[in-house]
């Protein structure tokens, strides 16, 4: 007997490659979207800081805007710098 796979339709879930599960600002899962958004993933992406913390992009932008004097990571209080990977 010989079995040949002609096609395979599989099912997967996508996941962010991050060292945490939830956004430290909105507390939502990274696989969920930030409170401002309704669609996850492409429409509500993650960004990483130089400190290696990551957040929903919308969350950290909002956070930084609310802190006009100091641009710090809300988790580690280091100066926030976007890490362009």
């Amino acid at each position, binding site marked *: 007997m010989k079995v040949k796979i002609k096609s395979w339709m599989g099912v997967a*879930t996508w996941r962010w490659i991050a060292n945490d599960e939830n956004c430290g600002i909105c507390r939502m899962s990274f696989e969920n979207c930030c409170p401002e958004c309704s669609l996850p993933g492409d429409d509500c992406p993650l960004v990483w800081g130089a400190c290696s913390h990551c957040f929903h992009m919308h969350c950290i932008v909002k956070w930084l805007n609310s802190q006009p004097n100091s641009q710090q990571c809300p988790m580690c209080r280091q100066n926030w710098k976007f890490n362009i990977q």
Partner: protein
Amino acid sequence: MTDIDAVWERTCKVFPILKKTLSETSVGNEDIEHVIRELSALGLCESVYESAFIEFDFILRQQIVPRFWKHFESVPDPDTGFYNFQLAVHELYSDFSRAQEVLRRLTLFRQVCRLKNQEKVAKSEEATFDELFRSVLLSQLAANFNDIVYAFYKVSFRIFANSYDNNDQDEFAEDMIELNCNGCGKETERCRCQELVCAFNTTNKHLYKMHLLDKLAGYTLTNLIQERITAHVEETCKGVFDASHIKNLQKWLDTIVINWLTRIFNRGSSKISEGDGYTHNVIENFRIKLSYFLYETYAKLIIDQFFNIIIDFPDSQLAIDDLKVCLEKIDLRKHLIKTLKQSLEARLLHPGVNTMDILTGYVAAIKAIRHLDPSGVLLETTTEPIKEYLRKRSDTVRCVITGLTEEGPTDLAEELAKSETLKENVDVKGKDEMLNWEVWNPDPIDASPVPRPKRTSRSADIISMVVDIYGSKELFVNEYRNLLADRLLVQLDFNPEKEIRNLELLKLRFGDSLLHSCEVMLKDISDSKRINSHIQSDLNYSNGKAFPISSLILSSQFWPAFNKETLELPDEIQDEFKKYTTSYEAYKGNRTLVWRPVTGRVVLEIELAGRTLEMTVNPTQAAIIHYFQERNEWALEELSGLLKIPPSILRKRISFWQTQGLIKERDTDIYTLIDEMEQSQVDPSQSQEICEEDESESAMASASDQREEELQVFWSYIVGMLTNLDSMPIERIHQMLKMFASHGSGVEFTQEELKNFLQRKVREYKLIYNGGVYHLPK
């Protein structure tokens, strides 16, 4: 002494009753007064007066009454029955009339000789006789007497009703020359209706004069009329729901029945004279009693047919309006509820009826019952069993969704289209209710006394009522989501445009937020297609692949939980998925894929000696057959270890290949590839059942799995309660948790669900169940 004899002779001539006869003698008043004076001189007045009544008693007992009842001894046919009765009454009346002359003389007698007890005799002679007459008559009542009276009046009623009908429909009369008269049943030419009516009127007049009409005929008349009413209501109203009958019925009662009765009680005339208050009262009493009976009969007829009325709705509105009118006069609520519940149960709630039909019936019932009782109380009481039954059917949500999104018998789609306008009206209506608080009525007492959690508004619209099958729209939407997930992942037979259109319709109704997950799910499916084609075009990927993979890539947070079924694919297959994942990671940057190997669909080409099979199977089945390609024989244990599938489930999965005729169980739990020579002998037609059973499995965690997860929230409460109270029966635990639930999480659950949860804890040795109560292990 001769003197006394002569006086006696003369006395008997004046009062022949003393010789036990009513035969009349013509005597002048002077003769009577003469005899009285003679008797008075002898001091015999009193004893003669009394003997006269003793003789009356004797004659009644021995002659008149037995003769009357003798007419009723033989069992008559209806025709002679009529004449028998007429004759008997006629004879009785002639005796009665002759007695009147005797009574007149006795009255004179009493007055002339001023009998001592005259003051004491409060009653007239007539009244004394009447009483005697009636009591003797009734004391000898013939057994079949009521039958004869019944036959007599029945003939008369038929003639009367018929003559009425003829007057009513003159224009048709010529076309409908019937051979026999509808009234008397004789050939038309020899119709004797006229004669019978005469006899009838005379007889009633006689009975009336003897004060016997009520006593002899009252009971039978009432029975007869009630029977006629029942028959008439059946004839004219049964199965006719698109017309109001009340007016005609009332008219029929007032004209035919009441007129007929009036003639009976009013000596043949249908006009009661102004001063005759007595007859007025009699007829008025009949009218009231019979009206009630009419309404009751009609209401019961409608109630008995209510299921058909539901099915015919809205064409049957007029019948329901009639029932409403009846119910205002007669309280039949209990009967209505009981009958309605029974008929719904008998017609809808059994395995032979498919879910769509039950749902259609339910929607029709909602409309019809709410038309009857806008308060919604009746609806709630009578349809609870339907809801409960539908909740147990696994395809109910599917049918509801189909109903909501496709034209069909349920009319749900139509209702959904209406729902937009309905939402706008809600506020206005609420205001009205506030303005009308003064005329607010409390719920009828049959409203369920215990308020259920999250009761939907009683005046909720039909879709809410349907959705209410699941207790709340959240639970309904949740069921819909599970259904959608299954369709998208397992059945793969969905039509994306249609699903999107459905979703848009449902969003209109249930709001965007509840259905947001479903929207993401559908978007995942269409995104997957795009991602797929991108990955296929990635040369790094497509050049190195062993077989084509396509994937549904899901946003885990928005899909219902998967079931816990496991599968580990053979390495060479896993490698292919790793390649796919790599390409995905390159495309989407910072994102990766977590495969769920157990779900999916695989097309295989199996080459056997001399033939090639192409089949579509699930991944587990594909993995199993893949291993048998490497080796002919596997022990269940070994395969179970490789595939990471528990043996009990694996056995079930292997059976698919057994029914396909490729694998056999050589020895207990030892499976072998069937020799290629043998393969052709296996009949593949047997395979059908297991395959189908397999197809129907769901990739999602079942509702009860999810429930248990939800109940986990309460576990610490339960432990706390049992620590404090030592042991508790399930009812108690359920009650207390419901209290917590109503303040806290908002999770609702039945005692049954709680029991499943607690039993699981018992299996996990975290609880002990003993003697009907739960307690913690020491």
